[in-house]
C-alpha cells in the first residue's frame, strides 16, 4: 500500500497491509496537523502534490527501505487537499521480525519522504497563509536552484 489519497487516512488499513505472521514487530508513524507552528495558531493545512512523481518517489523510498533493512512489509499513505487539525496527513507502517529493523525503516522512510517527495504544505493561520519551506533569500535575490546530486540507481 503505497499511495496518495484525498480521503481521511485509515490507520487500520495500513496496519492490515503490513500484517504478516512472520513479523513480530510493527512500527507506525503518523504525522498529524498541529494547531500551532512558529508561534502561529494554525487553522488548517492544505497539501498539494505532483501526483505521478510523488507516488514514484514513495515507491522508490519504500524499495530503498526494503533493501536496507530485513523488513517484511511497508505501507505509506499521504493525504492531499485540506487536512483539518488533528487529522493525519501522512502515515507509514513497517513490519519486521525484530523491532530494531521496523523502527529504523519507518524512521528512514518518513525522513526521506519529507525530504524528497513532491508534496507541498500550505499553512492557513489567523490572518494569512504560507507555503511551508517557501522562504525567499534574505535579500530577495535569486538563489541557484538546489539540484539533485547523484541519479537513482
Amino acid at each position, binding site marked *: 500500500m503505497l499511495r496518495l489519497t484525498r480521503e481521511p487516512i485509515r490507520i487500520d488499513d495500513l496496519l492490515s497491509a503490513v500484517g504478516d505472521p512472520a513479523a513480530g514487530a510493527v512500527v507506525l508513524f503518523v504525522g498529524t496537523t498541529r494547531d500551532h507552528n512558529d508561534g502561529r495558531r494554525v487553522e488548517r493545512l492544505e497539501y498539494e502534490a505532483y501526483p505521478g512523481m510523488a507516488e514514484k518517489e514513495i515507491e522508490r523510498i519504500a524499495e*530503498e527501505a526494503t533493501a536496507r533493512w530485513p523488513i517484511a512489509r511497508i505501507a505509506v499513505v499521504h493525504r492531499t487537499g485540506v487536512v483539518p487539525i488533528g487529522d493525519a496527513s501522512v502515515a507509514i507502517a513497517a513490519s519486521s521480525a525484530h523491532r530494531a529493523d521496523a523502527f529504523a525503516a519507518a524512521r528512514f522512510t518518513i525522513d526521506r519522504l519529507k525530504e524528497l517527495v513532491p508534496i507541498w504544505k500550505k499553512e492557513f493561520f489567523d490572518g494569512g497563509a504560507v507555503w*511551508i519551506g*517557501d522562504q525567499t533569500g534574505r535579500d530577495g535575490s535569486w538563489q541557484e536552484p538546489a539540484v539533485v546530486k547523484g541519479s537513482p540507481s
Partner: protein
Amino acid sequence: MTIRILLFASLRERTGERALTREVAEGTTAADLLAELRRDLPALRASGRISLAVNEEYCEPERLLRDGDEVALIPPVSGGRGCLQRERSE
C-alpha cells in the same frame, strides 16, 4: 522541441500558471530552461530554491531536454527542511 512545464504550490500561485508549453532549441538543458523561465516570469525570481524534475524524476541541471519532455519546477517540499538533496547511500 516542445516542452511541457509544470508549476506547483508557491510557484503556481505566484506566476498564476499551473502548466506552460514552450518551444526550445535543440541542446537546451534543464538549467537553461529554468534560466529562460526566470527571465520571462519575474514572479519566479523572488522564489527560494527550486529543484527540477524531468518526466517525474529529479534531474541534474545539465540534463539535455528532449522533445515532449515534462519539466517540473519543484519548490521546497513539505518537510520544510530547505533544499532537496538525494543522498543515496548506494
